[in-house]
């Protein structure tokens, strides 16, 4: 039996090693110091080393990891005094070791990507009071050396909802999520509110399938951020109930909605989420009326700029429509199909949300 166990062990180790490879090289340096390639920017302020701990999706997930890292690169390009690097996490158990490694390794600031890292970030911030931490999609949690970079995506969802209601021919639109958690349902809240606002303004009765802000325990969810097949199934079920525009808030699972749109022979169109769909899911661009976006790279870049200029900001940054932290992506293929009046109305709705004339009521909004 001995050799058998050995072989099994070797197999297991090989499998684990490959599983580890799943998210790209362990560490990466980019941007470099002054003179290596940051020709466009000019060095200013003090030299800082900024390090980013990514979540499990990997640096090219076409979503929040990639965009957060893009903000780091942009800041480094604009100001070569900012040195940047990142490390991916293969699972939730990597958060603390990665954070600790960077905090001890001479990083001036450690940026964590994703609200799931919250507890690990707080512990690290307590353990290393001299290092400045920042977390994307979470608040500063009251720590003096921690900065929260958050987004009020309900505002972006609101515009998406208004747009969907205005573009729907059947009078029924739909939205569904990956899991029933606040970062997902906040978009769905906004979408629902946007449709209700449209109905009130126009005395119409566009229906929303899949979510109702008044019933936070209901809603339609795929139960996964990876299961495309279920996403396709949900979207087709919505079409059978009459929806002609669907807003999936479910990462890769949401791509299944793209497959449903492709199979619908032009009956179904979509609004994408988080990033501009025509860039992150370009094969489905022709079905995307627009996208409800959050500007992760901008938030990170602004933070690093302020840090290099001398002071690490504390407290929270909340991205809103006002500072383009959240917004609606360009219409791309639908530019000619969205009526000019509707575009104008959406600009007006945006202005009204900024001025406070329209109140977004989602309970999941960052305070």
């Amino acid at each position, binding site marked *: 039996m001995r050799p058998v166990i050995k072989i099994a062990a070797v197999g297991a180790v090989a*499998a684990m090693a490959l599983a580890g490879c*799943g998210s790209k090289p362990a560490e990466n340096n980019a941007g470099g110091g002054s003179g290596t390639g940051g020709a466009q920017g000019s060095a200013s302020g003090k030299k800082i080393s900024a390090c980013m701990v990514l979540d499990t999706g*990997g640096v090219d997930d076409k979503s929040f990891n990639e965009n957060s890292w893009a903000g780091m690169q942009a800041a480094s390009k604009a100001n070569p005094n900012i040195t940047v690097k990142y490390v991916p996490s293969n699972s939730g158990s990597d958060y603390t070791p990665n954070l600790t490694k960077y905090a001890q390794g001479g990083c001036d600031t450690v940026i964590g990507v994703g609200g799931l890292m919250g507890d690990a970030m707080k512990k690290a911030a307590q353990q290393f009071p001299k290092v400045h931490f920042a977390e994307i999609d979470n608040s500063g949690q009251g720590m003096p050396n921690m900065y929260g970079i958050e987004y009020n995506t309900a505002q972006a969802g609101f515009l998406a909802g208004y747009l969907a209601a205005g573009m729907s021919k059947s009078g029924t639109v739909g939205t569904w999520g990956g899991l029933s958690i606040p970062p997902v349902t906040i978009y769905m809240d906004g979408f629902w509110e946007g449709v209700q606002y449209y109905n009130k303004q126009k005395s119409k009765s566009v229906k929303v399938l899949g979510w109702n802000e008044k019933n936070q325990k209901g*809603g339609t969810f795929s139960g996964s951020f990876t*299961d495309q097949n*279920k996403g396709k*199934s949900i979207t087709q*079920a919505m079409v*059978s109930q009459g929806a002609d525009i669907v807003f999936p808030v479910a990462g890769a699972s949401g791509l299944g909605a793209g*497959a449903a749109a492709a199979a619908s022979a032009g009956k179904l169109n979509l609004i994408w989420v988080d990033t501009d769909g025509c860039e992150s899911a370009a094969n489905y661009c022709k079905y995307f009326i627009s996208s409800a976006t959050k500007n992760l790279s901008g938030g990170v870049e602004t933070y690093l700029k302020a840090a290099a200029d001398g002071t690490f900001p504390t407290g929270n940054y909340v991205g809103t429509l006002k500072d383009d932290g959240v917004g609606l992506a360009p219409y791309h293929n639908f530019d000619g199909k969205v009526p000019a009046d509707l575009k104008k109305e959406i600009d007006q709705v945006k202005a009204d949300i900024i001025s406070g004339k329209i109140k977004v009521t989602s309970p999941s909004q960052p305070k």
Partner: protein
Amino acid sequence: MSQHSVEQVEVAPGEVVTQHLVEVPMSPSRRIGIGAAIVVIGLIAAVLLGKSAGSSSTRFDLNGSGADLTVPTFSVPGTGLIIACGVVIIALGVVQIVRGFGKRALRYVGIAVALLFIVAFLTWAGTEGKQSVQVGSLLQQTLFLATPLILGSMAGLMCEKTGVINVAIEGQMLFGAFAGALFGTIASNWLGLLAAVIIGGLAGALLAVFAIKFTVNQVILGVVINAFALGLTGYLYDAVMANDATSTNQPAVFNPIKIPLLGDIPVVGSLLFNQTIITYLMYVIVIVIDVMLLRSRWGLRTRAVGEHPKAADTVGINVLRLRYRNVILGGCIAGLAGAALTIGSVGQFNKNMTSGQGFIALAALIFGRWTPRGALGASIFFGFASALQTALSLLATPVKIDSNLLQMLPYLATIFAVAGLVGRVRAPAADGEPYVKG
């Protein structure tokens, strides 16, 4: 009340065996227990659903999408139908308590109770009258979601009937999904299909070599292969697909093929006979396995090896070779299940896109008592529960249902079904036992 019947069974070509089936009567406590459970289900339908139902009549739409011939939608009086269903269920339960159904009859009674309850439940869900209940779409989505599960459970069946536990269905599906997407883009979706089957078979061969030749613990081995599949496809996705999706990860999706005549039958036609090639292959695989397992030399030998390999060896069956062949074939079927997700459905691969469906397929196999028909039924049941969850969340039901509770639905239903209807579950006797000659 013991029943006795004689049956002629052809176990292999030319070998007819006379079987004397003696049905042992059910113990009174079990008989009454099952009857009481049925009565409770009936009461839930009649009282709970009947009372909370809305006042409108329920509109049903039996047409799925893509049907040429449609049947008109129709309305039924909500509360009346719900109570009627409940009363019939209660009556069946009372008959069971008083005199008991035979074993075979009880199975049909179980199915009837389940169907009546589902009718009552769907009627209840539509009694607010705002939307019609899309039964056609619900059934279409059931088959759509069940197809990979059915294929996955058949993959498991091939292995386990012959005595090798296959926990690696998930990983084999993931390999198949990846290969289907990659080769479907580079070459054509037909070659993608072939590649998925071959790569799935290779993953099956990996399982076979370690399980049969090196007699590694098969459950641990399965878990390792799953981790290996997740890691390798994830790595290859990053290395190959992520940066150049157009030329590596955009396979053409198989279009539905409508079978002449059969496809024109209203409701059933568009549901069963307007499907992709993978779904048709699934039909064929299920039928072939079901027939062959009971009526061919291969089937008899497979079952013998799974139950008592030593005895099979004694009569000259090459146990190891048969196991190799079946486990590799199982891997091929799992590869096809993976292809059903990419080139059969969404047209691109993403990391971990199987999302646990391989494990659900394994559960369906066990729930289906390691039989092809049972596994088929259980897979359809899981697919139905998943589709129902979506359909319910889209309807304005009389009582609001928590989305987390809905997510639980398939698993909750499994517990009830396993506890109440299936009874004792028995795996092939030599399942998971490596065979060492001598």
